[in-house]
């Protein structure tokens, strides 16, 4: 028999494609809208700290634009080579250097510092600090608003700034007194000038977000706008150099394609194991309830409530019923009759038996266990004595 009516549950590739067309279109439209939206919003904006192109609170576009407006030629340099090219005439050039990520090594720092006669280093690295003066030492974090209190013209013009950032100490060995420290908190200075080189620790003072506070703007404009040209140099990853060979250079050429192939093998293995041999089959499971659950629940309830007398009474009722049967008493026999009959058979004092079967009140779990044991023993005694010898 050829059954042409049989239905195939697995969709063909064509049908699968037709069925998923709607979803592909929907997802495509979403991706397109998101792409257009992102492109219009210009998400690729520069957000590096102190970047001259960044309009974010951490950038420095505000200061740079004002300097440009005042007639200073600002050249933005991303690498040391660009900076060197821009600083053609050291005498009329100010170099701004901010190496937040320590891209420059000692030699590069020294070279950069010599590009211009006037150099302002924001949060100098220890290398840069050594170039400015060997007598300067990093004094850690400082903050708050500080008065200028020194003879540096730019600082005097600013009167006070917010000093959030590093502070520096001028060591005793600075015998010639060339170093001028400003914005002091005790002996810790946020700005130190040695000759034409200035170390500024207040990292946030010149940012877009903080430039309007106190005399921050005056300090920035006076410090950086004293010459015709300003080279704004914030080193990038391109400045980073190392002598060590990379893994790429050390390994043979086939490593990369083999890694790629291994990745493809992994995907193939997923596809291999991932396809189930037919859909899952539903099983209706039966209800399963353990009959003893109510009994266990009741036991826990007794235990939790500490219902010792109630517990013991339950045990006693069972024992008395069995004793009555053993002694051949009718179902309607009273407890007193059971006590009398069983104590006679066991040969024990009726008062003791009555105490055990009726009167005793357990004060603790220990009593309870003891009494329940006594009940069992008594029942066994009666049974034993009834058995014909």
């Amino acid at each position, binding site marked *: 028999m050829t059954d042409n009516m049989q239905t195939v549950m697995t969709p063909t590739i064509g049908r699968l494609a037709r069925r998923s067309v709607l979803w592909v279109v929907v997802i495509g439209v979403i991706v397109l809208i998101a792409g257009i939206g992102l492109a219009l919003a210009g998400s690729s904006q520069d957000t590096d700290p102190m970047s001259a192109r960044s309009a974010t609170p951490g950038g420095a576009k505000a200061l740079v634009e004002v300097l440009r407006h005042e007639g200073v030629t600002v050249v933005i340099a991303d690498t040391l080579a660009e900076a060197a090219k821009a600083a053609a005439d050291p005498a009329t050039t100010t170099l701004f250097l901010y190496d937040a990520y320590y891209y420059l090594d000692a030699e590069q720092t020294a070279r950069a510092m010599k590009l211009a006669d006037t150099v302002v280093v924001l949060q100098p690295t220890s290398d840069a600090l050594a170039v400015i003066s060997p007598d300067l030492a990093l004094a850690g974090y400082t903050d708050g608003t500080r008065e200028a209190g020194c003879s540096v013209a730019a600082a005097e013009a600013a009167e006070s700034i917010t000093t959030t950032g590093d502070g520096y100490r001028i060591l005793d060995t600075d015998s010639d007194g060339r170093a001028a420290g400003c914005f002091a908190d005790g002996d810790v200075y946020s700005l130190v000038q040695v000759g034409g080189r200035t170390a500024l620790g207040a990292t946030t003072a010149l940012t877009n977000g903080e430039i309007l506070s106190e005399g921050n703007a005056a300090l920035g404009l006076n410090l950086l706008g004293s010459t015709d040209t300003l080279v704004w140099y914030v080193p990038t990853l391109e400045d980073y150099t190392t002598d060590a060979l990379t893994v790429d250079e050390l390994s043979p050429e086939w490593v990369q394609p083999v890694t790629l192939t291994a990745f493809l093998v992994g995907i193939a293995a997923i596809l291999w194991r991932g396809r189930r041999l037919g859909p899952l089959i539903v099983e209706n499971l039966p209800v399963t309830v353990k009959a*003893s659950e109510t009994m266990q629940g009741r036991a826990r309830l007794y235990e939790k409530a500490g219902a010792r007398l109630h517990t013991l009474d339950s*045990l006693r009722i069972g024992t008395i019923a069995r004793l009555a049967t053993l002694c051949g008493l009718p179902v309607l026999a009273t407890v007193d009759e059971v006590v009398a009959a069983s104590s006679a058979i066991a040969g024990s004092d009726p008062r003791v038996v009555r105490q055990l079967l009726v009167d005793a009140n357990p004060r603790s779990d220990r009593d309870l266990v003891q009494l329940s044991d006594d009940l069992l023993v008594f029942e066994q005694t009666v049974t034993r004595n009834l058995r014909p010898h």
Partner: protein
Amino acid sequence: MAFTGRFVIAVALGIVPVVYFNDASAAWWWLLALLVLCIVDIAIAGSPRRLALQRELPGALRLGETTSARVYLTNTGRRRVRAIVRDGWQPSAGAGPRTQRVSVPAGERRVITTTLTPFRRGERRAHHVTVRSFGPLGLLARQASIAAPGSIKVLPPFNARKHLPSRLARLRELDGASSVMVRGQGTEFDSLRDYVRGDDVRSIDWRATARRSDLVVRTWRPERDRRVVIIIDSGRTSAARIDNEPRLDTAFESALLLAALATKAGDRVDLVIYDRRVRGRVQGATGPELMNRMVTSMATVEPELIEMDWTVVPGLVRSITSSRALVVLCTSIDAPGASRGLLGVLPELAKKHLVVVSSVTDPSVLATAAQRSDRREVYLAAAAERALLDQARVSAAIRQSGADVVTGAPAELPPALADRYIALKAAGRL
């Protein structure tokens, strides 16, 4: 489409030319060659969609037995189908082996046989057959699941039938047909025979003795053609498991043993499985047909999570028979609260019929009541004693209503109920 282990190995082998030639492009050439091979392979593979399926199923089997189900695969396509086939049975059908390899040439037919050892009662279903057809290279496969519904009925096991021969022998003793010749205590007149020393003097027929001038006794045989009505409660309490067997299944076992015995004894047996709806009903069948219809109607009944409605039961019994009958109620008598419904209708039933309530008891309760070595066990023992007391109280209440009670562990209840039936029959109380 499905991938094979061979395909994964083939992709992995691409590493060899890459390392040998030390060139990345070798990997791409290898993958291109593999792609071509795959396309060829899948193009040559026989279509699983062109297989016509035909099931051949056994009708029914008892739980615990093994049977085999066949699926005929007819290749209506033009290419040979080399495939692994999986017959999609429910897990509880106990189907094996899971997959089978088969090769069907174009235009021919092959069979796959799946052995089924179901481990649950009821209707066990198969939904589909999945075929994964490989190409000649075994790199890729075409896969399709073809709907092929089928089902087998798994009947209650009737393990209690091992008790049947001994009970039938007892029944024959009652009948006087057995060689033991113990005279039955029945109430129906059978025949007259000569007095033999040892016969009950009360059974001497004086009128016949006077005619024959020789002592003649009447013999009796157990009554026949009585009605036995079995009502099984499939409500919520029947779901509880005792000794890893639901109460309902124990009730089925007892009902089957009783029915087998009663129908052999010449009584008419009717069965109703009820909670708030009639779940199964067997009426007016005798002999092998009765047993057959009983197991068939029991097969698909599962415990329902609803309360049994006892108020309808007298009406049910009345609809089955208007004459006096032995009414067996298979239910549970655990707690006075839960048995209130049952106790409410018992007097009405017992007025007209002989009522026996059959209930499973938990053998572990007795053991728990005697086990009192530490604090927790004492509390447990108290709860067990309480459960026993509840049971005793309900039993007493049932007896007071004029009905009879049979209780026992799951393994002992069916023979206990059968024994009670024989005892009632011997006493002529039916």
